[in-house]
């Protein structure tokens, strides 16, 4: 992970939230899930999914995070073009947008049979990592929302 390098007080630029039912992709067959992963995920995102169990739940997490990041970015890009680096498991974790003009953090939690992903776009942080101010902000916000 990168080193924390705050260059100024983080300035909130956008917030995005997405909720998906945990079982949303479980009704699909393995081929459909794999096909979707090939189509919409980067190699790095797929590698992370491959280490999780079940794969469909991991795919759901990544797609939910992309949607949250897309909403937070407010840049008019389509959600599936968002590129993520993610760490954690299907139950909880965090990530950040790659190749983004503004640092965008995202965290997710499994909560009441839903995956809840919350993303925050904030300027003023040159590099981001798991303990940076933006990440803390996102984590606290999600904990406040889900009570988890």
């Amino acid at each position, binding site marked *: 992970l990168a080193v924390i390098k705050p260059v100024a007080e983080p300035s909130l630029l956008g917030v995005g939230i997405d909720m998906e039912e945990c079982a949303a992709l479980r009704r*699909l067959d393995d081929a459909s899930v794999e096909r979707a992963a090939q189509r919409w995920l980067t190699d790095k995102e797929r590698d992370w999914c491959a280490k999780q169990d079940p794969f469909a739940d991991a795919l759901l997490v990544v*797609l939910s995070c992309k949607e949250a990041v897309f909403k937070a970015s407010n840049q008019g890009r389509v959600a*599936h073009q968002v590129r993520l680096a993610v760490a954690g498991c299907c139950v909880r974790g965090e990530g950040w947008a790659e190749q983004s003009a503004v640092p965008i953090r995202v965290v997710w939690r499994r909560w009441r049979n839903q995956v809840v992903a919350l993303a925050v776009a904030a300027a003023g942080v040159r590099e981001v990592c798991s303990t940076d101010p933006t990440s803390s902000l996102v984590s606290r916000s999600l904990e406040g929302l889900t009570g988890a």
Partner: protein
Amino acid sequence: MTPTEEIPARLREILAQLLGVSPDGIGPGFSAESAPEWTSLNHLMLISQLESEFGVFFTNQEVQQLTSFDRIVAALVGRNQAGG
């Protein structure tokens, strides 16, 4: 069955299975706006399913625009007539 009959029929099956709705309610006028089950997540699943099923590839612009039964049928029929 001709492609212009086959494509809507197959699309109806795919949408019904993916969205978990009755195929009877799917036809002209059916869209992401009218069907709450047609979420952004299901839309991505739908596009990758269609690309595989019909051997086509949709651009990002098309992915954003293909949010109704009619538009998808038109796009697939167009591709079919153009030879893929």
